[in-house]
């Protein structure tokens, strides 16, 4: 792996985002009545555990220049399968969720890598279908998980700040970082995202890499859903758009680009940690739900607008127009 260079956006953005939110978090007692304790750090890490697998799933597809909209659908299905099939033994449920995630990933990979379909419409269709399937499986109702031992175990406090759930999540990121850093997969993924045709010409097996990425994305989303259901002790057939928004904001803050070919797991971890800290700050300062909702929406909209390819072009044109008018009016004044 090359040495991180702070001048590059994929390093600078996550570093700055994490630094700002960390300072904001540490200063909470100065601008609100709330006090900080180790429990708040643990809560922030629990939010990280909730969003992390989803952000990693989305982020991996963003590196190769695709966008897996269906992650929340797979997340909902994974949670539901874990609850419904894991009543007897938790392993059956989690295994079913992982298998379903892998199957969904294979379908995506086959259509997107094999048949060369664009990822957005395909994953939009499967997102709708998966939400429907999850709701059909549960009759549209929230299903509860009766094995309280497991529920207590996943959120047990470990080393003051952690829980098995947050440690698993951080472990997933570290595993991804090692895999992508130590093997040529990391470089190949970025090559596929940067210029697919050039990557193919350079001998990268693009199709197999795309299938692998989507399988990983499906399994991570399903695992994220499974962990969340075990922690809540229930599974909700419709998680809404909030998880997708927070995961997308985390991935973009983590140095990913919708254009592809940029970013890595460590930046992603920093980006989603920043989002988790923001969520914890919102909880600590007791902001009304709709205010945080507006804040997240605004944050994502700003990142997307800044990431937009033609923004620079349009701004330049407006600036040129203003300058020309300036020059003209000055010329009129002087004459």
């Amino acid at each position, binding site marked *: 792996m090359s040495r991180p260079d702070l001048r590059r956006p994929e390093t600078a953005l996550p570093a700055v985002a994490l630094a700002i939110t960390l300072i904001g978090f540490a200063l909470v007692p100065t601008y609100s009545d709330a006090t900080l304790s180790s429990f708040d750090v643990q809560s922030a890490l629990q939010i990280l555990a909730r969003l992390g697998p989803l952000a990693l799933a989305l982020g991996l597809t963003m590196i190769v*220049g*695709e*966008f897996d909209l269906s992650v929340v659908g797979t997340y909902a299905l994974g949670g539901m399968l874990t609850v419904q099939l894991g009543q007897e033994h938790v392993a059956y449920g989690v295994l079913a969720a992982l298998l379903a995630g892998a199957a969904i990933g294979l379908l995506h990979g086959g*259509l997107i890598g094999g*048949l*060369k*379909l*664009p*990822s*957005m*419409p*395909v994953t*939009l*269709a*499967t997102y*709708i*279908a*998966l*939400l*429907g*399937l*999850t*709701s*059909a*499986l*549960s*009759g*549209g109702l929230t299903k509860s998980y009766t094995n309280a031992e497991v529920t207590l175990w996943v959120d047990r406090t470990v080393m003051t700040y952690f829980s098995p759930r947050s440690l698993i999540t951080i472990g997933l990121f570290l595993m991804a970082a090692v895999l992508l850093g130590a093997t040529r997969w990391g470089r190949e993924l970025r090559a596929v*995202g940067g*210029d*697919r*045709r050039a990557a*193919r010409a350079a001998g990268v097996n*693009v199709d197999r890499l795309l299938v692998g990425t989507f399988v990983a994305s499906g399994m991570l989303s399903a695992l994220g859903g499974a962990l969340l259901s075990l922690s809540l002790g229930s599974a909700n057939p419709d998680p809404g*758009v*909030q998880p*997708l*928004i927070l995961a*997308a904001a985390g991935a973009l803050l983590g140095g990913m680009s*919708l254009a*592809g*070919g940029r970013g890595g797991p460590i930046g992603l971890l920093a980006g989603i940690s920043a989002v988790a800290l923001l969520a914890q700050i919102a909880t600590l300062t007791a902001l009304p*739900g*709709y*205010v945080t*909702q*507006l804040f*997240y*929406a*605004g944050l*994502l*909209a700003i990142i*997307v*607008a800044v*990431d*937009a*390819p*033609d*923004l620079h072009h*349009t701004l330049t044109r407006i600036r040129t127009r203003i300058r020309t008018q300036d020059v003209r009016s000055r010329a009129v004044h002087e004459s």
Partner: protein
Amino acid sequence: MNVLTAHRGPTTVPHVTRRSATDLVTSALVIGAVVAVVVIGLSTPRFMTLDNAKAIITSASLVGIAALGLTLIMVGGSAVSLAISPTVAAVGMVFLSTQSLGLLPALAVALVAGALLTGLQGAIVGYAAANPVVLTIAASFAISGLATGISGGTSVSPDGTGYDLLNATPGGIPLCVYVLVALTALVEWVLRCTAFGRSLYLVGENRPAARAAGLLVGRTTTVAWLAAGALFAVTAAFTAAFNTSANVNLGGTLTFDAIAAVLAGGTAIAGGRGSAVRTLAGALLIAAVSDILLLRGYSTGVQVMVKGLIVLFVVVIVHLRTKERHA
């Protein structure tokens, strides 16, 4: 790299004989699917009744009007808006809360609100080429947040009865069906016969080429989204009038229904092709399929799942056939 358009690698040039084979297979699949829907429909009890036909066209009309708006967005190459449901909910709340002004002023306020909410997103997509899918996800969250904040999370009840005129059923058919037919004709005319319509197709087909040719890409896209927002507002007014109260959940699954209708009509999500009449057909197909599932006693979940699978099926078929034509 654009996640909305297909990547044409060196392996995508099909052989001449394989080309006609793909064509044959996709045609057979489409005909098979349509025959299957017809057969299942005919064998479903109470499907072939006048009342049921009315139910289908009524549910198709509310989705259809919003889908016409989405057609403009998709033809212009900005893919989809995922903010249709919250926009309809917010505009429905505005419509009912302004009933004291009278029906027509309330309608005008609703149309302007819908156009502005959606047009703002369109301006960002049009001028900056922001990713419309992610942007509208953010917008959907922002709009429902705003609606919750302003209404305090409660339902809006109208202080007037002017809205009831929208529930009229002249000739035994709901007013919204007539409105759908009229708006389909209007949108079709705009797309085919006006300079705006033609430039919208060009922008959707190839944005850089349209810009190079001197078309006002940003303005064309923004106007398409403004019009789409006004069409969402029409759906909102009818939906709110039908429910006689409105809260943040008024939109229901409308976003997915409208996307399913437009795509089932065969409009390409990458832009540059599609028509209002195709969308009308798509809306009728989706409404008929939902109706069959409902009559056969399937849950909402199954209905949503089938819509998703139809969209997937159509996306794959349209892609295979388009690749053909380009090859």
